């Protein structure tokens, strides 16, 4: 697979965030009395804002003594005002257009990303991951498909063909992306995260999110993200990329770790529906879908 070009990486630096969050960042940052946690909530539900703030926080310019893995973490380390101004600078770039030449449904993408994020974090609890680390799991879910937005924005013609093939022939999107765009979205997302010095477990979880593996040596975040991606498609079937793995195709570690079958895993995730409603209402996506 060819390496991701520098040009594409540079384009990603200038990628705008989603319209609803851009609007909310502008409004919250104009109000001196707005609540800090509201701003954090908006940022950490937008994959582009999250990715870019983690990029700044992990930048070699500071060489922080710890790698920054969530927006709360960035706020504690860089300070609320710095995060606020970085978010405002990103918002000032503009917002992702509702429609794109690839015919890629952005609302659907966002809904799937948020659903996966919420489920990845819930699965972390099943794996008894300490609460303070569960935030990284949310970020992994939120960013796992970020490569798709990059393709939609910057390689729309090729991506459109990949999407079309996927819909017409029921083949997996990531294989079609590799054919038409040169690499698939999981590799592209991982390369972005790697280039911007995100923590290694997050990078490899994103890179491997379509590969079940044997479960041996897999980090908890990789296991949770892999399963969450499939469960999210069960909760809300994405139109952009139908899932290509059934329960029968999965290795035993999945059910050994999380539950007997998909439905029982979903049922066991307490508060899932409320968490999903909160997450999606914030960015005004998925109305009536849940």
């Amino acid at each position, binding site marked *: 697979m060819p390496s991701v070009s520098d040009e594409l990486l540079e384009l990603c630096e200038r990628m705008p965030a989603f319209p609803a969050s851009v609007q909310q960042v502008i409004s919250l940052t104009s109000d001196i009395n707005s*609540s*800090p*946690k509201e701003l*954090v909530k908006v940022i950490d539900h937008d994959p582009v804002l999250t990715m870019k703030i983690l990029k*700044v926080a992990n*930048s*070699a*310019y*500071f*060489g*922080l*003594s*710890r790698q920054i893995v969530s927006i*709360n*973490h960035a*706020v*504690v*380390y*860089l*300070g*609320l*005002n*710095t995060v606020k*101004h*970085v978010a405002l*600078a990103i918002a000032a770039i503009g917002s992702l257009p509702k429609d794109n030449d690839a015919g890629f449904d952005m609302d659907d993408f966002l809904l799937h990303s948020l659903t996966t994020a919420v489920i990845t974090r819930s699965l972390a609890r099943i794996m008894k991951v300490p*609460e*303070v680390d*569960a*935030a990284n799991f949310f970020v992994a879910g939120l960013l796992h498909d970020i490569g798709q937005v990059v393709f939609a924005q910057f390689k729309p013609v090729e991506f459109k063909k990949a999407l079309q093939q996927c819909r017409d022939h029921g083949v997996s999107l990531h294989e079609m992306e590799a054919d038409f765009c040169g690499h698939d979205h999981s590799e592209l997302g991982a390369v972005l995260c790697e280039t911007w010095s995100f923590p290694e477990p997050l990078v490899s979880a994103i890179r491997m999110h379509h590969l079940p593996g044997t479960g041996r040596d897999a980090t908890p975040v990789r296991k949770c993200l892999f399963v969450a991606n499939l469960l999210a498609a069960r909760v809300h079937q994405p139109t952009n990329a139908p899932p290509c793995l059934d329960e029968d195709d999965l290795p035993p570690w999945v059910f050994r770790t999380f539950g007997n079958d998909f439905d029982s895993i979903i049922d066991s995730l307490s508060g899932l529906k409320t968490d999903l409603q909160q997450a999606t209402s914030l960015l005004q996506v998925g109305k009536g879908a849940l």
Partner: protein
Amino acid sequence: MKVRFWGVRGSIASPGPHSIRYGGNTTCIEVTTDAGHTIIFDAGTGIRPLGLELMERGQTQCAVCISHTHWDHIQGLPFFVPLFVPQSKIDFFGAFDPVYQKDLQSILAQQMEYCYFPVRELELKANIEYHTLHEGARIEYGDAVISNVLMNHPVLTYGYRVDCNGKSVFFSGDHEPHHNIYESDDTFYGEYESLIQDKVGDICTIAKDVDLFIVDAQYTEPELVHKRGWGHGSFASGLAMARRAAAKNVVFTHHDPTRTDDQLDRIAEKLKAQLRANDPSIQIAYEGLEIEVG
């Protein structure tokens, strides 16, 4: 190692009858190492008289560690005479600005642009070097080692530690105690609290066992409640941090511009009366205060 305070005021210089004894210049602290090297914390208006004294002493070299680039910490620089003298060798240390995406040199040069000052940074005669610091840097300067840690302020701010022959001093720069943005019944409260504890732990590790702990105490505790997010600490929060770092002596600085000399006297008395056994000794900074460290 010797420490001298040239500016102890926060926010803005505040000369006048109310600040005659403690002083009205903004932050500038001079550290003289055992071998006579000069390390300066911040370049508020207090750096102007320090510059004149350095010229008199014939001290042509110094390091200037900028905690952050808010005005009260850099505003004295255009009047720092050693910058205009070709024999000077001045090393600046500070952070990269993540919002403006600019390094220290660009930001400091900006305050000397045409509309702010008649001489441009380019025209300065001294041999100047700018060093953008990563957190956790370790810089050897003469017989001292300078290290740094990120503090909590509305702009990126480094606290600095200087070690010299087993003696040490820590300067917090401007710092507000971290505040949990979530309510105690919120899902994320615990996660955020734990991140705060890690961060405060990092700061106290850098400041561990210092002989002299110089800390931002712009506010009293009741004032701090109304100034949340302004980026400053209180006498109580400064003392708490010094206790956690097991510092031996504490000096409170960055006094609010409205704080009068008499108020500072009363605060000092009250604080001393409240000290516990094994607490560090405490003092309130005033212009001209000199401390022999160690």
